[in-house]
C-alpha cells in the first residue's frame, strides 16, 4: 500500500505540475489533465478503501455484518465520488453543476437507505403483531 501511495502521490503531483504548465498555453488541456488526475486518484482511493474494509470484515466475521457494511461502503463511495465530481466542476468554473451533483449524491444515499428503512419497519410490524397475539 505504501508503494502504491507513493505512486499515487507522484501521479497527483505530476498532474498538478502539468496542469500548471499547460494553463499558460492551453487552458482547456490543463483542465483535462487536472480532471484526469483527479479521476485516477479517486479510483485508486476507492480500491484501497475496499481492501481495508475487506480486512476489517475478515477480522470480525463477514456474514454477520456484510449486508450493512456493503450499504455503508456504497454510501461513502457515493459521497466521495460526489465530492470529487463537485470539485472538478468547481475547478472548471461550473459551480451550479457542482451543487446539482452534490444534491444527486445526497438523494442516492437516501435511496440506498430505503431497504434499511423497510427492514426496520418490517421488524416494527413483527413486534406489533407479537403484541396483538
Amino acid at each position, binding site marked *: 500500500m505504501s508503494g502504491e501511495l507513493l505512486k499515487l502521490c507522484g501521479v497527483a503531483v505530476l498532474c498538478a505540475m502539468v496542469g500548471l504548465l499547460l494553463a499558460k498555453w492551453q487552458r482547456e488541456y490543463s483542465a483535462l489533465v487536472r480532471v484526469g488526475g483527479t479521476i485516477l486518484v479517486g479510483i485508486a482511493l476507492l480500491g484501497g478503501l475496499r481492501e481495508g*474494509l475487506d480486512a476489517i470484515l475478515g477480522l470480525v*466475521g463477514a456474514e454477520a455484518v456484510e449486508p450493512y457494511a456493503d450499504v*455503508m461502503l456504497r454510501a461513502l463511495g457515493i*459521497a466521495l465520488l460526489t465530492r470529487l465530481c463537485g470539485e472538478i466542476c468547481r475547478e472548471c468554473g461550473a459551480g451550479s453543476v457542482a451543487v446539482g451533483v*452534490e444534491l444527486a449524491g445526497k438523494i442516492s444515499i*437516501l435511496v440506498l437507505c430505503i431497504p434499511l428503512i423497510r427492514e426496520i419497519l418490517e421488524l416494527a410490524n413483527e413486534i406489533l403483531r407479537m403484541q396483538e397475539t
Partner: protein
Amino acid sequence: MRLRRSKGIYILILFFVLMLARVFSLSALASTERNQEDMPKGFSEWVEAFPEDLAQLLPEGMDSQNSEEAGEATLELMRPETLLSIIGELLNVGVGDAFRLFVKLVGLLLIASVFGALRASISSDTVSGAVHFCTTLAIFAAIIGLQAEHLERVAQYLERLSALVGAMIPVTGAVWAMGGNVTTASAGTATLSVFLTVCESLCAKTVIPVCGFCTAMALCNTLSPELGMRGVAGAVKKTYTFLLGMIMTVLVASLGSQTALTAAADSTTARTAKVIASAAIPVVGGSVGDTLRTVASGVRYLKTILGIGGIGLILLLTLPTLLSLILTRVVFLLCGGIADLLGCEREGRLLGELGTMYGCMIAVVSMSAVMFILALWIFVKSVVAVA
C-alpha cells in the same frame, strides 16, 4: 341377674371403645402412609406445565406422585451444586451468543469509525450528514432484529410463567385446605389469581409497547439529538419500572398479611374444634389431637415440597431468559463505551440507550419471578391450622 347383665353391658362398652381407639389409630397410620405415597391432585399437571425444552434440567423424580421421591428430587434441585451447574450450562451458551453479538457490533463500530474519519474529508455538510444518517441506520437495522428476538423471548417467558403458576394455584389451595386452612385457601388462591392477572395483563401486555416506544425514542435521539427525546424515554422507563415495583410490593404485602390473618383465624377454629372433640368424645378424645398432629406434619411436608419445588421451577424457567438479557445488556453498554473511544458518539449514544432499555426488560422478568417466589415462600411458611 341384674349384676350379670350390667357387667355384660360394661364389657360390651369397653370392647366398643377399644375398637374405636383402634379405628382412630389405624386411620392416622393410613393417613400417614397416604401422605408418604400421594402428592395432591393437580401436582402432575403442575409439573407438566413446565416447558419441555427446559424439562431436561429437572432431576429425576420431580413429577413423581410419591411424596418421598418428589421431596428428594426437590432437595436435589435446590442444592447449590445443581443450581450452579445449571447456571454454568446456561452461561456457556449465553456467553457464546453474547460474544458473537459483541464482535458484530465492534465490527460495525470500526467500520463506522473508519467512515467517520473519511467523512471528515467531505466538505459538503449535507452529503456528510446523509452518510452519517446511512451508517447510523445500518447499525440500528443490525441491532433491531436482536431486539425483536429478545422481546419475543420475554413475552414467551411471561406466558410460560403464567401457565406454570396457573397450574400451581389449585394445588396450593388443596394443600392449604388439607391442613385445615380453609379460609387461607380461598383468600390465598384468590390473591394468587390476582397475581396471575397482573402478570398476564399488566406485564405481558405493556412490556412490548414500552420497549418499542423506548427503542423508537433512542433512534430519534440518535438521528436528531436536537429534538431532546432522551428525557422522555428515560422518564417513561423509570415510571414504568417504578409502577411495576410498587404494584408487586403491594400485592406481596397483601398476600402476606392476608395469609397471616386467615391462618390465625383457621388455627383458632381448629383448636376450638379439637378442644370440643377432646371434651365430648370419651376416652379416645385425646387421640383426636394426636391424629391431627400427624396429619399436620404430613401437610407441612407436602407444603415444603410443593413450595420449594415451585420456587425451583420458577428459577429454572427464569434463569435462561434473565441471563440472556443481562449478557446482552452488558454487551450493549460495553460497545457504547467502545464507540465513544472510537469517536462514534452518536452510535455510542444509541447503544447506551438500547442497553438501558434491556434494563427495563430485566426488571419485568425479575419482578415477575420474585413476586411468585415470595408468594410460594409465604405458602411454605404459613401455619397449618390443625397442628
